[in-house]
Structures are given as structure tokens and as C-alpha cells.
């Protein structure tokens, strides 16, 4: 059984007279340990798919099975629990709490899950031990994103979701972050799903889902994904 089963999911906004389909009958599956990239232009519906996978939004119809849990019919409390234990989210603009240091932002997960990894170890794993006591405003974009990744991983989630994780970074830093994510996927057997509009990402992915106007335009499986460093950006 697949880790993620997205079945005939529809997400609409607006009222009967002005119904907008953000996601329009989308189906796909994702296996454990896959590095998946969802590609599409602005308004394609990729972020909506990610939000539904992350338990931050509910589909209008359809079902979403993750790890045998039907998250599409969960209530608020159950979704909160799901987000705490199953998902680690990485945002385009990092979304670190500005009044906490790098270490404290990662250590925050200890208040969420009992078995969170040690914050110092996680910070070290992203190469930022010497910056652990800095506030987000004192760090570069790449450093902040690495902290965000450490935060996401510290909960030891089954799935890591990234919404344009390199969108606010320069290309060199973006490559570094992408490589980190790819390594996390392979070394720790995490399922990583990245949403991006950058088609170059497809070369590194195990699976590429191309979306347009709320529908899946193409789903390709990459038998030989290229290492991040070998891709021409």
C-alpha cells in the first residue's frame, strides 16, 4: 500500500455563482522514501495540494489517505495531531519565530512531540552549530532555511513538505538546500514532496507531478534521478 493516496480530490473556493477550482479531480500516489516534485506555474494548484497533504486545508471532495489515515475526514484536533506527528513543513520564507534563536526555533518541537530529536544535534546536522544562538534577523536566507529544515526534521516526521523552499534564495544557496533535502530523503528514508515552479528540480526527483489549472497534466517517474550538484541550473 502506498504511503500517500490522493483520490479524486477537488478543492473549490467561492460560491455557486463564482466557483473556482483550485484542485480539480486530482489523483496520485506516493511511496515511502520518494523524493517528489510538484511542478506548475502560479495558480496551478500545487500549493493547495501541498496544504491538503500537510493537513492545513481540507478538500471539498475526494479522499486523502496517508499512512492508512483518512486525513480528509479528520476534525481539527486530529489534523493538529497529524501535523505534529506525521508532517514536517518547510516554507518559502522560512517562517521562523523571530523572537527565538535558531536553536530555540528547533527546540520548539519538543513542546509539540514527546520524541523530538535533540535540537542541538539537528542544528549541527544542517551545519549551523556555530550559529545556534543567533536570531533569524541575524542570519542569511540560506541559514534560515536550513534552520527551518532542522525544525521540520526534528519531529522525525514521515513526510517532509516543502512549499518553494528555495524560492527566496539565490541559486547557489538553493542548490545547497535542495541537496540537504535530497540527502534527508535518502539517508533517513523520508518521503519528501517539494512544490516549485522551477522545472530544473524535476531532474533530481523520483517522481514529477506536473499540474496546470488545478489538474495533473503529467505524472512521470524518474528511474535515474540526477544528483543535485550535477544538474545544470
Amino acid at each position, binding site marked *: 500500500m502506498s504511503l500517500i493516496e490522493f483520490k479524486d480530490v477537488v478543492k473549490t473556493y467561492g460560491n455557486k455563482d463564482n466557483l473556482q477550482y483550485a484542485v480539480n479531480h486530482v489523483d496520485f500516489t506516493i511511496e515511502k522514501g520518494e523524493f517528489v516534485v510538484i511542478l506548475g506555474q502560479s495558480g496551478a494548484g500545487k500549493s*493547495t495540494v501541498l*496544504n491538503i497533504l*500537510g*493537513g*492545513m*486545508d*481540507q478538500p471539498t471532495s475526494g479522499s486523502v489517505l496517508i499512512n492508512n489515515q483518512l486525513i480528509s475526514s479528520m476534525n*481539527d*484536533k486530529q489534523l*493538529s*495531531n*497529524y*501535523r*505534529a*506527528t506525521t*508532517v514536517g*513543513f518547510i*516554507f518559502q*520564507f522560512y*517562517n521562523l*519565530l*523571530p*523572537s*527565538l534563536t535558531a536553536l*530555540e*526555533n528547533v*527546540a*520548539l*518541537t*519538543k*513542546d*509539540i*512531540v514527546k520524541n523530538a530529536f535533540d535540537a542541538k544535534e539537528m542544528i549541527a546536522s544542517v551545519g549551523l552549530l556555530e550559529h545556534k544562538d543567533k536570531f533569524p534577523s541575524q542570519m542569511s536566507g540560506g541559514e534560515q532555511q536550513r534552520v527551518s529544515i532542522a*525544525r521540520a526534521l526534528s*519531529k522525525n516526521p514521515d513526510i517532509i513538505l516543502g512549499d518553494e523552499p528555495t524560492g*527566496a534564495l539565490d541559486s547557489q544557496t538553493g542548490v545547497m538546500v535542495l541537496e540537504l533535502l535530497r540527502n534527508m530523503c535518502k539517508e533517513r528514508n523520508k518521503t519528501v514532496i517539494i512544490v516549485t515552479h522551477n522545472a530544473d528540480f524535476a531532474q533530481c526527483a523520483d517522481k514529477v507531478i506536473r499540474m496546470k489549472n488545478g489538474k495533473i497534466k503529467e505524472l512521470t517517474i524518474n528511474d535515474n534521478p540526477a544528483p543535485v550538484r550535477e544538474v545544470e541550473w
Partner: protein
Amino acid sequence: MLLRKMYRDIKHNFMQFFTIFLLSFLAVFLYAGMASSNVGIKQIQSQYHKDTNLADGWIYGDGFTNEELNAVKSLDHISDAQLRKMIETQGEGDNKPTIYLYLEKQNIITKPYVIEGEAFNPDSTDGIWINNRFAEEQNLRVGDTYSLSYHNVTITKIIKGLIMTPEYEYYQEKTALEPDFSKLGYAYMNLNAFPVREYVESLVTSGDITVQDILDQTSALDDVVAQLEANNMTTSDITKDMIIDKIASMPEDKLFDLLPMTEMIIKTDVSDVLALEDKIAGALNNDYAVFLDRNSQPGIKQLNDEIAQHDQFSFVFPVVFLTIALLTIMTTMNRMILEQRIQIGTMKAMGVKKRKILLHYCSYSFFLSTVGAILGLCTGPFSIGNALNYFMPTMYTLPKWKSGYSSTFYLIVLMTVIVCTGATYLSCRKILKINPADTLRPAPPKNGKKCAFEHLPFWGKLSFSNQYNLRDISRSKLRAFMCLFGTMCGMMLMVSGLGCMNTLDNVDEWMFEKLQNYQSEMILKDGTSLSDAEQLSKTLSGELVMTDGIEVAVEENANATKKVTASITVTEGKGLYNITDINQKVMSLNDGDVAITRKLAEKLDVSVGDTVYWHLYDKEKWVASKVTMINRNPQATGITMTRSEYDKSGYSYQPLICVTNENVSNIQNDAFAVTYDRIDMQASFDNSMKSMNFIVALLVTFAIIITVLVLYNSGILSFNERVKELATLKVLGFQSGTIRRLLFKQNLWLSMIGAMIGAPLGKMMLQYMFDSNGDAMDYLAVISVQSYLISAIVVIGCSAAVSLLFSGKLKKLDMVEVLKGLE
């Protein structure tokens, strides 16, 4: 981690959160401070009453016998009763002090509280126990000899103890405006130690007592009457010398019949003592004048009224400060939650539970309000409480003064914390209902719609800054309301504070230029004959005035629950001792006029044309008088009439004072005991009002604090809400000064409106404060134009000063950073 976030967020928005802390602190500080004095007084008073076995009821009459005492004692619910006699004597000293001397054969009820020396011994033949405050003023000590005079009889005893009694928690001379402890005191003595023989001889010699009086009141002359009848003579043949000879040989206990016990004090086991009046009246065959409970005893009532006023007033401050705290928290937390929207969304995305996020934000106000409230609770009683206790002894007498704590204080602390935390809860609740995905996006802009001001016909003609500010007020109603409410409260407190001084100046003028239209007041000696008094008045072109205590009701022979204790003033209508109407305009009092004070008329529900019934305090005969005028007096409640009207009552006219505009400093006359001139009396009044300075300082200080806090917070919120717009204006080319004036304008409008609303409310609050001062006072709240102007200038000045604080922020505004936003 969220705790650290809280500390750092508070530090980052220090002034706004400090405001919440300060408002919580002030709400509890002021309440606990003012109430602690009351709590302490009540605790001490309660113990004082218990220690002295204070009477529950007082019965006054012409004279009570032992049989009547036993009859009352035997009634249900009467646990004990005792007789005593009070006489008004004159003490030693140039100022001819008055001493109320209590003569008792036993002392089981209302026992004097010993400050120094021995406990009162009603069997002592050579001792006298004097109240300690008088003793302090007169430098008297235990062991000193002290003399009192009464009806030409001198009583000289050794001071065995310095005492106080709850019946004199408040006391002042009849004509005084405030207590002067050097001029009035009280003392206790054994009845049998009173030189009754000399006293009766003096009464007979002076003609104050006649043969008929002796026959009516005693059996002392019964055998003489029998002898006369045996010799075909009548009582008219009895001469003074015969009586004096008889007195010399009479046993003292018979002579004491001429010094009857006019007071009976009782202890009961019921809370409603006045409900026993009918039974007591029956036991006494209705042969009594007045029946009072503790609530009606003037010496106790005055302090209780003051405590009640403080109690009422102490609630005003927490209500004002908590309301402002509520508004500040709601606006501050609303703002903060909007600013931290994405952080909230991130926490939700991470799986932080809603409850935890809610608790986190509620903890801001919970922590600050708890610390503020507890600090207020700890410091209020020690500062304000002790300050009030410093002033109270100038007017009142208790064994000691201390602040106390009550469970209500903790309730106020709890209420403060609940209000503050609850306000935050209401601010947070909305955003937590939004799903995490939407929370991660910036809030959608508010729907653009026309504000109400845009419907004004001259909207198009308004300048950009006016339109901009009106739209902003419409958009941020809560913030605008906070600014308005805060400045309204500030103005109200300021006007009340300054108005206090104006009102006291007005009372000064009212008393000493309208009511008491004379330069000197001469207190007539006790026992001065009416002819001597009239001669003195004629010599000085003065006016005789009588004042006495009365009970007044709307029906004759009313029982205690329907009577009101008041005073009667009898003048000669010569224009030196006046009355004024409710607007302080002097009224002519003519023969046939009976004026009743406004507060008394309201209490009895009478108006001009109605009839009231009254009797002198220690007399039983009721008199009907038709009310022809309603007057107003700042310091007295009662009825006023001319001498000719009083004479119709059947009571004998006994003037207390002679007032005149003549210089009396060199006058030698046996008729008067002491004189006071106007300057002294005014100085005395000013001195008594010193405690008001403290209240005024308190009101003005907190008015400024509230105004500054509210305006500053409103300014910060306004700035933060509009920082992008202000940055845009800067980019467009507006000068910082222009933008500052733009922000200042809104604050100025709201401050002016707040000041305009607060001004009349300040007068209302001041009048309420004076009206809650009990029945005895009837001040008219007067606020000068100058006070209004000063208050308005201070409030608007605070507004300007706060705006200046923002000029620095505007200059430093980084347009690029603000307009870049997330990018």
C-alpha cells in the same frame, strides 16, 4: 520556548505591555489603597466597640428612675441597661473649653477605653477621667489636678486616667466647622463625687430652680409643705433662705433627684435595635424624648458616613482603570495577533495545538496583569492606605489607625486578571478559527467601503489630511474609542481634582460672606440669662443665635425609624446670621418663616407648604411648623426660624452665641465665655480641608497618567497600523513634519472630544463625591472656568507631547524596509 517568546515579545513592545501592567497595577493599587484604610478602620472600630462594650441603644429623657431602668432591663432582647447623666461643663484654660462630663453610679456599658492610667472607677470620689485628645492639647497628665465649672460650682478632681469612648469617634463644638480638640473634651466621673449640694444651692440662689420645681421633682420639701399646711401657710410662703437651710441638712441622695439621670444606655441581642422602641416606650410609659441606635449616634455616624463615602469612591478608580485596561489590551493584542498572523499559522502548521497557542497569547496579559495587580495589592495599603490614615486622625478618634486587608481585595485582583486575560482571549479566538493554510497568508485587506463621514455634504471640500484621518477613525473604531474614552476619563479626573479646590473656596465664601455675615462670634456662658445676653447684643449691635439638636419627622410622636436627627437654628433676622437658597443666594428670614435644608427636605420628602414636626432633643414636646422655604447650608442639616416663630413653640429661647461686626477684642463682659473672629474661623476651616489636598493631588496625578498612557498607546497602535501608508507618503514626498501633523490631528480631535465629554462628567463626579459625604454636608460642586481651561490644556498638552514622541519614529522610518514587506 513559548515562554521565552513571550518575554521577548513583551520586551520588543515594551511600552504597550507596560501600559497593561501599569493599568492593572493602578486599578488594584488605588482600590486597595483607599479601601485598606476603611478595612483597617472597620476592624479597629469593631474591636473598639467590643472592648468598650459599646451600647446598642441610647434613650434620652427628662429623667429616668431605677424602676424604669429595671422595667427596661426586664424586657425581652434587652441584655443590660444602665443610667447616666451628661452635663456640659467648662474646663480650665484661656479658651474656656467645653467638657461634656458623664456622671455614673455604675459603668457596665460603654466603658471608657483606657489610654493611660487607671480604668474608670465609678466609685472613685476624687478622680476624673478625661479624654486623651483634650489632655494632649492642654498638656494634662495622669496625676494632674483639673477643675471644671458648672452652674457656678467648681469641681476639682485628680486626673486618674486618660480615656476615649466610641461615642466620640467624631465630635466638634456646636458652632464649629471642624473639630478643635483643645476646645472640646469629655470626661467621666462618679455621680456621687459631684458636689450636688453646692449645685442645688447655686440653682436656688440664681433662681434657676423654683420651689415648684423642687416640689415636682423631689420629695425634699414634702415635710416642709406639711408643716406649712399645719400652720395654714402655702408653698408661696417658702423663701430661698428656707430652701437653702433645708438643702444644708438634706441627705445627698435626695438632692440627686434634682440632677436626674437623663440617659439610659442599653445592650440588646438583636441587630435591629430600633424595632424594640415600642416595647421600651411601653416600659417607660412613653416618658422619653429620643431613642437612638448606633447608626444614629452622631459621634459614630459621622465616621461611618465617611467610611461609606470612601467605600463608594474606592470602586470608581478600578472601574475606570480596568475599562481603559480592557480597551488597551484589546487594541494591543488585536494588533499583535495581526502582526504575528504568519507566526500563528506556522505554529499551527507545525502541529502546535490551538489551545496551546491561545494559552500562549493569553499568558501575555495574564502574566502582566497578575504581576501588576499583586504589586498594587502589596503597595496600595502601605502608601495610600497609610496616607489616608495620616489625615483621618485630624477629624476622628480611634485607639489606633492601620490599614487592613479584606477578601474583596483578592477578588479585585482576580477580576483584574480575568478581565485582562479574557480580553486577550476574545482577541485571539477569531484568528484561531481560520484554517492554517489561510493563516499563513497575509490577512486580506478590509473591504473598501465608504465610511459614514463620506456622506457629509462638505466631504469633498475637506483637505486630504482631514479625509484621511476621518477614514482612519472609521476603520479603527476600537482604537479611536480607546483614545476618546481615555482622554474623557483623564479630563473627568482632572476637572474633579481642580474642582475640589474651587468648591472649597466656594464653601469658604458661602460660609463666611453669605451665611455668617459677621466678624466675631461670642460663645455665651452657660447660665447667662436672656436679659444679659440681650443687653450684650444691644451693646454690640449684634444678633443672638440659638442652635440646638432636634429630631424632626413628618408626623407627631414619630418613632425612631421615622425621625431624623437635625439641628434647629433660631436667629433674630437681623442679617448677620443668614440662610441661602439652593443656589447660595441670601434669603430674608421673616417672622413666620420656617426654612428647612434641602437634604433634610428630600429625606423627609417635604416641600414648601408641608408641615413638619420637631422636638428638642432632650424634650418630649412635639411642635408643628409649616415649611415656607427650602434653604441650603454646606455644613448643617435642619430647620431655621426667627425668634418670634420659635417662641410660639413653647420652648424657652436660650441663645448660644452672639454675633457682631464690632471689634470685641477689648470687651469685658461676664455674659460670654470666649470669642472667635472670622479670620480664625476661616483659618480653622482651611486647616480642616488639608486632607482634600491629598485627594486633589491623587486625582490630578492619575488624570495625567491615564491621559498619557492612553494617548501614547493609541499613537503607537495608530503608527504601527499605518506604517506602510506613512512610508508611502514619505516616498511620495511628504515631509516628516507634515506626516507628524497628520497623526497629531487625529489625536487632537479625539482628545478635544474626550475633553468636552469629560468636563461635565467631572462636575457630576465631583458632586457625587460630595453628596456621598453623608447627610451633614451639602456642598455645591463649583468648577471655575480657569479649572476647565487648565484641565483642557493639560489633556491637549499631553496629546501634543505624545505626538512629539513620534516625530523621532517618523524620521527614522525606513521606507525601503517597510514597503519591501515579505520580499
